[in-house]
C-alpha cells in the first residue's frame, strides 16, 4: 500500500498542472491566511479603542446619582476570537455593540453587513472560504479520474495481474489525494500560528486542532466519494459531472434551502410581536419610576416591617433603590421568559440544521468550523448571556448603592462619588472552553464520522463485488 501511495504521489508530481495548482494554492493560502490575521487584528484594535473610550468616560464620571448612572449605562462589544481570522462565521451579520442599561435588555446593533453595499455572498476571502469551497473542488479534480484513468488505459488490469489488491489500490488512491488536502490544511495552520502576534493558549490550540480535524474528515469524505464514483462510473465525464453536482448541492444549494426550512419549522416572532409581548408582561410588574401598584405597596409594607419603622422617611436606607432593584428583577424575569423562548427557538433551529448533516456533510463541517473558531450561533448566544449577566450585576451594584449608600428615600439629588464608579468592574467576555461545548456539536462530529465510515465501508464492499477483469 505504501508503494502504491508513493507511486500515486510521483504520478501527481510529474503532472505540471498539478504542480502549478499546488503552488497556487500554497501561495493563495499564505496570502489569505495572512490577510485574515491582518483584518482580525485591525478589527480587534478598533474594538479595543472603542472599549477604552467608553470605559474612560465611565471612569471620568463626575459624582452622579447611581440610578442616573444606570441610565447612563455602558456598552459591551462583541469580541473577535483569534480564530475569527480563519472563519468569521456569523460575526459580519450580527451586530457588534450592545448597550447595557437599566430597565431593559437590548439587542446587538450595527452589524458590519449593514454598513456598506453587498460585496460577497460567500463572505470574506478567509481561509475557511478556501477550505470549504476551493480545496474540495481541487480534491475533486485530482480524484475524479484517478480510477477511470487507470481503467481506460488498461493499467488496472496490469496492476491486478501483478498481484496487487483492488481494495489496496483504491484506498491508496484515496489516501494519496487526501494527504494533499491535509498538507494544504497544515500549511494554512502553520501560517496562522507563525503570523499571529499572540501566543496561543491551550483552549485556542485545541480549537485549532478540532478545526483542522473537521476539515480533514470532510476532505476524506470528498476524496472517498469522488474515488468511489470514479470506480462505479464507466467514464470520467460521468463521474465528474455527478461529483460536481453533489458539490454544488452540498455547498451552495442545501445550506440555503435547509436554513430556510428550519426557520419555517420553528418560526421566530417579528420584532414588533416580540416587543409587544414583553411590554405586556413588563407592565404587570413594578414600574421603578412610577411605583403606584399593588406590588410596590406590599414591598413598602414588608420593608417598613423589616426595619421596624412606620414611614419611609424613617428608614435608614433609600427605599427608591430597593424599588428600582425590584423593578429590575421583575424585568429580568420578563427578559428571561421572552429572550429565553427566543434563544430556545434559535437553538431548536440549529439542532434541525445540524441534523441536515445526514444528507449534507458540508453543513456539519460548516457548523464545526464556526464552532471551533468561536464564531457560530452558540458562541453568539453565549456572549449575549454573559453580557446580560454582567448587566444584571452592574445595575444591581448601582441600585444597591442607591439603596444602601447613605441616602434617604426620595433623595434623588444624592450622588455617589467617582471612586465608586471606578470600582465597578468592566464587562469581560470569557470564551467558553471547547470541552464545555462538546455536547452541542456531538451531532456534527458523529455525522462526519458516520459519513467517513459508510463511504470507506462502501469502497471496501464494492472493491470486492465489482469485477473489472
Amino acid at each position: 500500500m505504501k508503494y502504491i501511495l508513493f507511486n500515486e504521489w510521483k504520478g501527481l508530481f510529474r503532472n505540471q498542472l498539478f504542480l502549478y495548482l499546488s503552488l497556487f494554492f500554497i501561495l493563495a493560502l499564505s496570502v489569505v491566511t495572512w490577510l485574515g490575521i491582518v483584518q482580525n487584528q485591525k478589527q480587534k484594535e478598533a474594538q479595543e479603542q472603542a472599549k477604552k473610550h467608553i470605559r474612560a468616560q465611565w471612569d471620568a464620571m463626575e459624582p452622579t446619582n447611581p440610578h442616573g448612572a444606570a441610565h447612563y449605562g455602558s456598552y459591551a462589544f462583541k469580541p473577535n476570537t483569534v480564530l475569527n481570522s480563519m472563519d468569521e462565521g456569523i460575526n459580519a451579520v450580527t451586530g457588534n455593540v450592545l448597550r447595557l442599561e437599566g430597565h431593559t435588555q437590548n439587542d446587538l446593533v450595527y452589524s458590519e453587513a449593514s454598513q456598506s453595499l453587498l460585496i460577497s455572498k460567500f463572505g470574506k476571502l478567509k481561509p475557511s472560504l478556501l477550505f470549504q469551497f476551493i480545496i474540495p473542488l481541487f480534491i475533486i479534480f485530482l480524484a475524479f479520474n484517478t480510477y477511470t484513468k487507470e481503467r481506460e488505459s488498461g493499467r488496472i488490469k496490469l496492476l491486478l495481474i501483478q498481484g496487487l489488491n483492488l481494495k489496496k489500490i483504491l484506498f491508496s488512491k484515496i489516501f494519496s489525494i487526501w494527504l494533499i488536502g491535509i498538507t494544504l490544511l497544515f500549511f494554512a495552520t502553520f501560517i496562522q500560528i507563525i503570523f499571529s502576534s499572540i501566543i496561543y493558549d491551550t483552549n485556542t490550540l485545541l480549537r485549532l486542532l478540532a478545526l483542522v480535524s473537521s476539515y480533514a474528515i470532510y476532505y476524506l469524505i470528498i476524496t472517498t466519494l469522488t474515488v468511489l464514483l470514479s470506480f462505479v462510473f464507466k467514464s470520467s465525464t460521468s463521474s465528474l459531472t455527478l461529483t460536481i453536482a453533489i458539490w454544488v448541492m452540498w455547498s451552495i444549494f442545501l445550506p440555503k434551502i435547509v436554513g430556510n426550512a428550519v426557520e419555517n419549522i420553528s418560526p421566530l416572532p417579528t420584532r414588533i410581536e416580540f416587543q409587544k409581548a414583553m411590554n405586556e408582561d413588563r407592565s404587570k410588574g413594578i414600574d421603578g419610576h412610577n411605583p403606584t401598584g399593588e406590588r410596590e405597596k406590599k414591598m413598602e409594607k414588608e420593608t417598613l416591617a423589616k426595619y421596624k419603622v412606620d414611614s419611609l422617611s424613617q428608614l435608614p436606607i433609600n427605599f427608591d433603590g430597593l424599588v428600582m432593584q425590584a423593578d429590575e428583577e421583575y424585568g429580568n424575569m420578563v427578559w428571561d421568559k421572552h429572550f429565553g423562548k427566543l434563544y430556545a427557538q434559535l437553538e431548536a433551529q440549529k439542532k434541525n440544521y445540524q441534523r441536515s448533516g445526514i444528507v449534507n456533510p458540508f453543513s456539519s463541517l460548516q457548523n464545526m468550523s464556526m464552532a471551533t473558531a468561536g464564531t457560530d450561533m452558540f458562541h453568539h448566544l453565549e456572549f449575549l448571556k454573559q453580557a446580560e449577566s454582567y448587566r444584571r450585576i452592574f445595575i444591581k451594584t448601582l441600585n444597591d448603592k442607591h439603596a444602601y449608600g447613605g441616602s434617604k428615600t426620595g433623595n434623588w439629588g444624592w450622588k455617589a462619588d467617582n471612586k465608586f464608579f471606578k470600582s465597578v468592574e468592566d464587562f469581560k467576555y470569557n470564551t467558553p472552553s471547547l470541552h464545555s461545548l462538546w455536547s452541542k456539536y456531538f451531532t456534527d462530529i458523529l455525522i462526519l464520522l458516520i459519513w467517513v465510515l459508510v463511504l470507506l465501508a462502501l469502497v471496501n464492499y464494492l472493491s470486492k463485488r465489482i469485477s473489472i477483469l
Partner: protein
Amino acid sequence: MKALNICLYEFKHFYRNKPKVLAYFLFVLACFYALYSGKNLQKKQQETIVSIELKQQEAKTKILSWFDKGEKGPEDRPWIDVTIPFWAIWYTPTYAIKQPTALLPLGIGQTEQYGYYKQVTNWSSTYDNDMVEELSNPERLLNGNIDFSFLLIFLLPMLLIILTYDIYGLEQDLNFDKLVHVQTGSTQKWIMARLNFYTMLLLFTVVLFIVTTAVMNDAFEGHFSQIISLILLSTVYIIFWAVTFYFIITKSKGSSAQAFLMISVWLLLCVLIPGGVHQLASIKYPANYMTEYLDVNRKEAYAIFKLSPDTLAIRLKTIYPDLTKTKHGQDSIADEGIINNTMSAIINQMNKVAIDKIELQNEMKNKFIVSSYWYNPVSFTQNKWNSLLATDYNAYKVYRDNVQKAIDKKIQLLVFECWDKKKVNKDTYENYSRILR
C-alpha cells in the same frame, strides 16, 4: 450547416440528454421556490406594516376619545396632559415605514440586514436600536436566501456550465473534432451556434420569470423602467458568461478540462474576487463601532442636561432662528418647562452631526467597493440588481433619510408649539396627526 439547423440539432441533443434536462428543470423549480419565498417575505412585511398602521390608528382613536371625554391622559399617569403640545405631540403616533417594492420577489438583496419600520419619538435617531433587522437566525442570514437574484447571478452560470461543458469537448474526447470542422466549415461558428441555443434558452427563461412576476405583482405601471433595466441587465450578464465560456470552449482540450476551467472561472468571479474585495474593504474600513454616535447619546447628552435653561435656549435659537418670533422667544429668562420639553432638538442636532460622519465613513467604504466593479463584475451586477429593486444599502440610506425627516418634522413641530405654549384641543391634535402622518 446553417446556424438555425445547428440550434435545432442542439435542441434535440438537449431533450435527449436527461441530466441536462433535469438540471434545467431543477433550476426552473428553484426559480419558482425563490420567487415564492421572495413573495412570502414581501407579504410578511406588508402584513406587519398593516398591523402597525392599525396600531397607529387605534392609538390615535384612543387619544381622540380623551378629548371627547374631557380627559387629559391615562388614569394611572396624572402628570400627562394632552392639552399641552409636549404631551399631545408625544402621543401622536408617528411611524416611518419603508414599503417593500412590488418587485421584491425578484431579489431580496440586503432587505434582511435592516429594519423597515420605525416609531418616531422626540428622542429618535436613525441609528436607534429599533432600526436593526427583523429577528432572524444569524446562521441563516449568513447562508443567505435562495432568492431569484442569487439564482440568476450565481446559479445560472453554474447551469450554463452543466449545459455547455461538453460542447466540442466531447467531440475532442471521442477524437472526432476534426470531423466537425470538415462537416461545418467553421468550428467556431458551430460552437457559437450550439452555445447560442443554451444562451437563448436561459435568457428566455429568466425574462419569462421577470415579466411574469411583474405582471402578477402589478408592477408594470409603476416600475416599467426598472423592469426593462432588469431585463437588460440579465441579458448582458448571461451574454457575458456565454462569451466567457465560448473562449474557454475554443481554447480547451476535452470536456474535463473545459469543465475544470469553467468552474475555476466561476469560482474566481463569483467567490474569490468578491471575497477578496470584501476582505480588503474590511481591512481598509473595519466595522464601525459608532463611538461618536454613542458619545452623543451618553456623555454629550448628559452634559447637555446639565446646562442652564438660558444656555439651552440660546442653542435652540441657533438651531431654529425663527424661535425668536414665538410667544416665548423674546423672554429674557428662559422658561425651564419649555426648555426641558424641547431640549431633544439639541440632541437631535448633535445626533445628525455624528450620523453624518458615520454615513460618510460608510460612503467611503462603498466608493471602494464601487471602484472594484471593473474587475468584479459579479458584485456590480448584484448591487445594480438590488439597486433596481430598492433593496440595497442606498435604498436603506434613503429610508434612513426619510426617518430623519420624520424626526425633524416632529421635533420642529414640538419646539414651535411648545415655545408658543399653544393650547391643544381635538382639532389641533388631529392637525398634528395629519402633519406627522
